[in-house]
């Protein structure tokens, strides 16, 4: 673990990564376990009593079917929200955090290029996101039987988890890229918050507003959930799109980072 910047990054953050891993999985599984509570006639009536616009705005659709419920809660709301916060934290610390605290000077004075540091720190983020996706998928597979969610199927749970991990990777790349370009965590958090909130509402509300339907197509939420992986399995094109955008963000951040001064 001490041989490379990549390994050292994961090693240094092992405790906080474990906490995020356990936390996100626990909350995802906890929500899944609530499905039997919602899946009855009274609840259905109660939910239908809400104005449709409100349910659209928070992304709740078809919430009484197993795939609809899990897609609206664990994968539609809490999962991505937690992944965004997680991504901002580890992506922001990757370059900007080290730079603000003055730790970056020592690393960059070693025989390692700035590009290499960016790529290795990004690789650590990808591994962290993949780990969260994997453990979440395993947790959901275990709970799906007892929670009456068995109809979704193991393959679809893994498909949605993989796409959630890619969604997290995209925000991690955004955080890393903005941090590498600016060296400031405040810029990272502001950008991630704006893209996250705009993406969420753009995806949920865009289609119901004349002329703004395209918002869902460009929203990270739309790319991630639009193909309904819980019903249709892994969406290759959507997944590739999330991966490609991530790489572009990292490359753009690295490009600026390589040309600018490192702050004291």
């Amino acid at each position, binding site marked *: 673990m*001490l*041989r*490379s*910047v990549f390994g*050292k990054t994961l090693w*240094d953050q092992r405790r906080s990564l474990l906490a995020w891993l356990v936390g996100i999985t626990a909350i995802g599984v906890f929500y899944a376990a609530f499905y039997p509570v919602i899946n009855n006639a009274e609840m259905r009536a109660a939910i239908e009593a809400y104005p449709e616009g409100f349910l659209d705005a928070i992304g709740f659709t078809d919430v009484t079917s197993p795939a609809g419920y899990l897609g609206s809660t664990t994968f539609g709301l809490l999962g991505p929200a937690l992944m965004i916060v997680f991504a901002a934290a580890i992506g922001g610390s990757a370059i900007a955090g080290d730079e603000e*605290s*003055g*730790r970056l*000077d*020592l*690393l*960059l*004075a*070693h*025989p*390692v*290029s700035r590009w*290499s540091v960016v790529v290795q720190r990004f690789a650590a983020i990808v591994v962290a996101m993949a780990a969260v996706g994997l453990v979440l998928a395993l947790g959901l597979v275990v709970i799906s039987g007892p929670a009456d969610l068995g109809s979704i199927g193991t393959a679809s749970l893994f498909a949605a988890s993989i796409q959630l991990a890619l969604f997290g990777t995209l925000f991690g790349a955004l955080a890393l890229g903005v941090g590498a370009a600016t060296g400031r965590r405040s810029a990272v958090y502001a950008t991630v918050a704006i893209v996250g909130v705009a993406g969420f509402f753009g995806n949920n509300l865009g289609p119901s507003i004349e002329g703004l339907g395209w918002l869902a197509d460009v929203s990270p939420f739309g790319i991630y959930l639009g193909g309904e992986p819980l019903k249709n399995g892994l969406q290759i094109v959507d997944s590739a799109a999330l991966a490609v955008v991530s790489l572009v963000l990292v490359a753009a951040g690295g490009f600026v980072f390589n040309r600018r*001064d*490192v702050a*004291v």
Partner: protein
Amino acid sequence: MTIPIKAEALTKSYGRRRGLTGLDLDVHEGEVYGFLGPNGAGKTTTIRILLDLIRPTSGRAQLFEQAPRSGGPALRRRVGYLPGDFTVLGGQTGRELLIHLGHLRGGVPPARIDALADRLDLDLSTRIGKLSKGNRQKVGVVQAFMHEPELLILDEPTSGLDPIIQQRFLELVAEARTARQTVFMSSHVLSEVQQSADRVGIIRGGTVVAVEAIDSLRERAVRRVEIQFDEPVPLETFSGLAGLEDVAVDGNVLRCRLTGRADDLVKAAAGFGVTTLKVEEPDLEELFFAYYRGDEVGHVA
């Protein structure tokens, strides 16, 4: 033979603030070069340009006759660097950090790390966050020296070290010099570099105003001297002596400023009974003062 450090007309502007204003540097292979100047003079800025952490606004900087930027990692492999503010994650032990940094440098024998830590009296198994500032600085010293680089760039290396460890550090510098390593170390205190440096460059306002062999600088340095005698002494015995200024006698006590050799003063004082003798180390400001008196103008680089 390649020149370890060279800079020509180096400038660096931060917005409207001027960091460097045309700095020239020429460090010879195998020498210990003291880079001396008050805080804010541009020492750290110069060093960070040499390590390609920042880029100059104009002018040229070179390590081993290569630009820091185009030289990249291969060039930095030949350098050991101690930042002025040595900050690392506190959750790791010294050994964890040093082994990691050693790997980045292509591997450093653990025995070498242990030997250096022993000499500096540093415990490598303690988490860095729990170390005192001085002990943390020792970790920084070890990582700079451990791979035996051709060139050591040390930014205020002795800050926070207690006098005994400072002495051990200076031994390391002397050994590096014997091994034909080049040492470039900055300081704002002359006494920190005068013991080990061959030459001293004085930086002020973003430019090197003078380069001197340490011996001639020491001769030029102004020291405050205070001698307490057993009995009152006559002023005229001392006031005419060469190298003495601002001579004042206050009862038993003589106060003056001494430039250069102390011989005349000591011989004059020997005619009386001396109770105590106090000679203050020359500080940089006094040194600059000495430098900027009329007769030195022609000397300024």
